[in-house]
């Protein structure tokens, strides 16, 4: 019992330490650490959390998660980027408000995820794994072949994000970090 209590206490301590670190991070770390490592870690962590949620509570080990991450990223990139006069443009360039775009991209991805899940829901174990891998590959090939929404190269244009510190005005990064993450089989690169 006391061992259990020690474990819980340790976990809480680690949690609090991580939280404090996350809050203080912008003050402590250099921009390289912030942008290239910590932000990436948080992004991948969200992806991993979805996988853990599915496997721990649903018993489903899904390889579709990276595909869904890619879909959401492409959706957001297409929704919020705008046409730049004279610049090279690519993608739908809807130029929506970024906050609206965030919500819409998540809703769209959830809708697609529901369709995927409905088809896969009756398979399990290794079959589920195979089926969800095909989802990721299909998503990858889809965004690659449909040049209307960007193709393999990133969506180009500018966003109207009111990002303070990290933002140059044309932040195309939202899409270019997306394309590799939807690559099948390589969840992290």
């Amino acid at each position: 019992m006391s061992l259990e209590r020690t474990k819980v206490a340790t976990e809480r301590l680690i949690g609090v330490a991580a939280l404090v670190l996350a809050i203080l991070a912008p003050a402590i770390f250099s921009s390289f650490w912030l942008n290239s490592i910590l932000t990436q870690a948080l992004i991948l962590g969200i992806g991993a959390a979805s996988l853990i949620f599915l496997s721990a509570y649903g018993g489903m080990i899904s390889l579709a998660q990276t595909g869904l991450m890619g879909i959401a990223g492409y959706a957001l990139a297409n929704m919020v980027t705008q046409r730049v006069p004279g610049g090279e443009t690519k993608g739908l360039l809807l130029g929506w408000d970024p906050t609206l775009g965030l919500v819409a991209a998540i809703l769209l991805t959830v809708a697609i995820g529901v369709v995927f899940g409905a088809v896969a829901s009756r398979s399990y174990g290794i079959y589920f794994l195979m089926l969800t891998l095909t989802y990721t590959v299909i998503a990858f090939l889809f965004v690659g072949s449909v040049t209307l929404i960007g193709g393999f190269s990133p969506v180009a244009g500018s966003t109207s994000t009111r990002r303070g510190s990290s933002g140059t005005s044309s932040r195309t990064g939202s899409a270019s970090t997306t394309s590799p993450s939807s690559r099948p089989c390589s969840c992290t690169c």
Partner: protein
Amino acid sequence: MAERIRAWGVVGTVARGAAVAVVVFAFLYVLVIANPPPEVGGSWRTTNTGSALDDPSSFLETILDGLTFAGLLFIVASGFSLIFGLMRVVNMAYGAFYLLGGYIAYEVQQRMTGSGIFLSGQDVNTWEWVVPWLVAMACIAVFGLAVQQLLLRWNQGQDLRQALITIAVSVIVADQVIAHFPRTVPLGTQKYGGNAVTISWPGWTNRLVDLHIGGVHYSLARLVMLGLGVSVGIVLWLWLQKTRTGMVIRAGVDDRQMTSAIGINIQWTFAIAFLVGSALAAFGAVVSGSQSSVAQGQDGQWLLYALVVVIIGGMGSLAGAAVGAVLYGLVFSFAVAYLPITGNDCCQQYSVVLTFALMALVLAFRPQGLFGRVA
């Protein structure tokens, strides 16, 4: 099973009704609804060739395209299915085996014909295709066997772990292939980096055959591809049905523990199956590289093809792989030929979605695939 399907309830009935409607519509579209392109513009009814009634010979050619592509799909998918059927290993590295095999065959062929020139196709004799094909198959068979013996053998029975191990192998191998291939390239083109390269068919396949049906002249190389697929099917069937090794493999598929309990060395059988399965990946790569090309990124693509074919057909069944390959091949070729061409960005590039549609359709009626047994 019946209970689970009934439990699916109203939603399932509606979904299956919609699925049937979509299939009926697709058939009608191809047979009568589609129109050939007018002088200007186009609508949802406009396709490249029009319907089957407008242009029967194009329709026939599309069917042949589908069947010949199915031959290639079957070669690749049967190896995947063989490994899965016997060992319950989902070999996610299969696409990487494919890619490596294709590049090895290309290198060998370039060395044989004299490197650094664009081959014109007619100059390649049969041996200069057969030897690269054999070398690639041998290399990948040995490589696959090494992966199985070193990484998979001591994780037997833990299928998720094995799947994750093979994913790791696939990432490593695919990236190494990009780093080291193609080595022999024509002057002025970039070495390494996984550029697209083409293996040449033997020169005698480079002509059209008159089929005497509807005035169709069809590529001999594609017919050879279909022939190779059918041959692989027949040889595999004879091997599994008529030889002692085949019987042991089938016994292993049915009941692994009992098979080893009566004194059969199941490890030996596993090794043989993995050897043959990996060799088939390279076989497919050489054929596909001859017909189109070998390039980076195809590992994921061909893993998808193999997965879809065995998911449709049913895991571990040879007949399932054949039927799945034919279905997928036909859907693939008809999608390219008969998706409407309404504007600059529509709609042929959406053909990959039909892959998902086909899979969803089959799984809606048979969750275990067409020939799969309920696990």
